[in-house]
């Protein structure tokens, strides 16, 4: 009897795209985080229907200028992330990746500074009322993710400046890009809830 075998020694070792295990694991994590964010928005909506006074009268209308600038910066950063880091990783172009990461790290830090300023100027605390609790939780959770994304980008920038980059690292870079898009996109509904909704949803 002859032995039939399926020889796989010709197959590539490691890929840096959506076929890789890590890429799927990353998407799974984003599904979890996305569900968490969706439930957070649901909480805001639920509390809105449960309260006549929403946001409470004591809450000042939020300033729109700086948060909008920050949102704009974030959206622009996603473009840099895509065009320089993500495309760069596909083409194995290290310089493009490094520039992309440097720009995004800078924007990330700038965004966090503006976020800090906005948080100190909110005019209410988490312990003032349920509205304060949910808004501070939204800001806190998004800030936490933004810190993580910025920290990751800076770590990658350090890594790719001092150590060799293989397919494995290219995959890390692309997964971080996906995470970055997630953090940017999730801020859009949160931005509307925190800074725009108060102008429209208050009754009476």
């Amino acid at each position, binding site marked *: *009897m*002859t*032995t*039939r*075998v*399926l*020889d*796989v*020694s*010709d*197959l*590539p*070792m*490691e*890929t840096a795209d959506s*076929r*890789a*295990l890590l890429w*799927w*694991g990353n998407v*799974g*994590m984003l*599904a*979890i*985080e996305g*569900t*968490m964010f969706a*439930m*957070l928005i649901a*909480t805001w909506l*639920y*509390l809105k229907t*449960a*309260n006549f*006074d*929403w946001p*409470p009268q004591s809450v000042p209308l939020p300033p729109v200028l700086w948060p909008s600038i920050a949102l704009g910066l974030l959206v622009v950063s996603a473009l840099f992330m895509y065009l320089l880091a993500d495309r760069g990783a596909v083409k194995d172009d290290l310089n493009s990746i490094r520039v992309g990461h440097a720009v995004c790290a800078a924007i990330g830090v700038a965004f966090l500074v503006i976020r800090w300023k906005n948080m100190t100027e909110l005019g209410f605390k*988490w*312990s*003032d*009322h*349920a*509205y*304060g*609790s*949910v808004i*501070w*939780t939204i800001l806190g959770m998004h800030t936490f993710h933004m810190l993580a994304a910025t*920290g990751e980008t800076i*770590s990658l920038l350090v*890594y790719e400046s001092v*150590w*060799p980059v*293989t*397919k*494995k*690292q290219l995959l*890390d870079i692309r997964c971080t890009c996906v995470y970055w898009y997630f953090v940017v996109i999730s801020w859009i509904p949160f931005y509307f809830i925190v800074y725009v909704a108060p102008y429209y949803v208050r009754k009476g």
Partner: protein
Amino acid sequence: MSEYALTDERELHATWKPATGLLGWLSETGHKPIGLRYIVTAMCFFGAAGLEAALMRLQLSRPNNTLLGPDTYNQLFTMHGTTMMFLFAVPVMEGMAIYLVPLMVGTRNVAFPRLNAYGYFVYLFGGIFIYTMFALGAGADAGWFAYVPLSGPGFSPGKRVDTWSQMITFTELSALVVAIEITVTAFKQRAPGMSLNRIPLFVWSMIVTSFMILFAMPSVMLGSGFLALDRLVATHFFNQSEGGDTILYQHLFWFFGHPEVYIIFIPALGFISMILSAFTGRKVFGYPVMVSSLVFTGFMAFGLWVHHMFATGLPQLGESFFTAASIVISIPTGVQIFCWIATLWTGRLVIRTPLLYVLGFFIVFIIGGLSGVMIASVPLDLQLHDTFFIVAHLHYVLIGGAVFPLFGAFHFWFPKWTGRMFSERMGRLSFWLLLIGFNVTFFPMHLLGLMGMPRRVYTYGAQMGWTALNQLASAGAVFIVASIVIMLTNFFVSRRSGEPAGNNPWNADSLEWSTASPPPPYNFLHIPVVSGANALWDAAPDQPFVTGMRTHRREVLVTKTLDAEPDHREEIPGATIVPFFLALTTTVALWGAIFFAWWFTVGTLLSVIVLLFWFWPKREDVEEHLENERKFTLERGGEVPT
């Protein structure tokens, strides 16, 4: 060919060999040891929770009993429920999946072995945490679902509820990482030829379960997180007087809590299908229908949560919708039960202990399902809410639906885990004791509930007329304890002195039975190639297998999601102690936070440091990778930049 296989095996073994010693134990990343650790740890918690239940039954065996005071009793029923749901039922199913899924799909390890080790330690530390606090007198005491306002800062001062809410974070974290590993392993690491329509039914059930975990657990993490924030930093999510809402907590909890029931139950459905096909000698009737029923159950489970909240005075239209949904979900389960009956009917039955447990499941679970259909209707539910009828129903569903199949599965895969057969006589004895003991304990609770006995009362007066049925229930518990003791004794004794089992003692059909018992650290000498839904039964005499995998690295074959065509090879990490340290820093963050909020920040920063160690690769690994990539490009006539 044989010479090739021999050299192959030696190096493969050296690469995959588990480390020894304490350090080796803490660094283990193999799916089989970690799966078994989950199972053993979960069984220890099962024992603890069982002891708590036994104490409660002892207390209720006489009216006006003073054995336990109300405060102790509150802690006992809370710890019992919490332990059974979060530290036993979900983790034990995860442990089974971690052990079995990679074997069943024909790969060498789970997709993210370090994450797997991390998940186990986080679960272990979470369990140690809540039991340490319990021993120190801060046992959770607001029920396993910790409703506000009772569990809020106003009515539960102290640390008791905080331990509960943090334990949730621990266990959900662990469940979530397992869910991701299992999904990716089942979708990307299947043996060539195992297309979606050839996946073993247990693996399908774990895919559905994992997806449910992904979308259900975040809700309870948020809910218990809000509760912790309300208690620790004075937010007002559930404080009615500051614009919060108590019912919001119930929504967040049950949006997780109902799927949770199915997260426990659906893996059990997978066990049943695997056991039935082995002991009827035929493939399970209606494979496509079985899979669609699993998926349908998974979706429907998210549409029923409000039926736990009928007594909260929700709008009637909403209640009617959830009544309808609760009745609809019995359809896919019914379909599966009919498919199994057809399998039993047309197969050649071999009655062994695992099959007995499955038959026991049919009896017990169907009773539980019927009482479920009863309380799905709002008027009856309002009458029975918070009575012992509910206690009876949930135990029939969970013990019948999950524990019976689980114990069947323990017996079924015991020969694979240990390489030995268990004693059939003791197996049967433990089964009959459990079946009788279970019904004697829990059936009277239906009647007690109908007579109006509320749940969660530490005693009752003799004039209520509940004494005889309570005594009957307490007597039944003795049989259950005896059954568990016999089962464990059987396992302990047979582990050493049972008959050698061989690779496939049941003549079963899935891939784990094609390798040695217990399987070698790398699972399969050669990754198999699959040509049918019942991999071993459908295999040709000269069934091909995979060659050409690197053996000096821990390498797995990644295949395409739909048809499992070979796609590429990926190296996965070996033994490392970093996950253990990350679990420690996570514990610092979560345990510390209940005393002082800044501990959370401290733990997080420590975790970041550990994570840098996690991600930073070894120099020699990077260089080998570069070399491989260079060779790979050259072999294909490409150019390598110098």
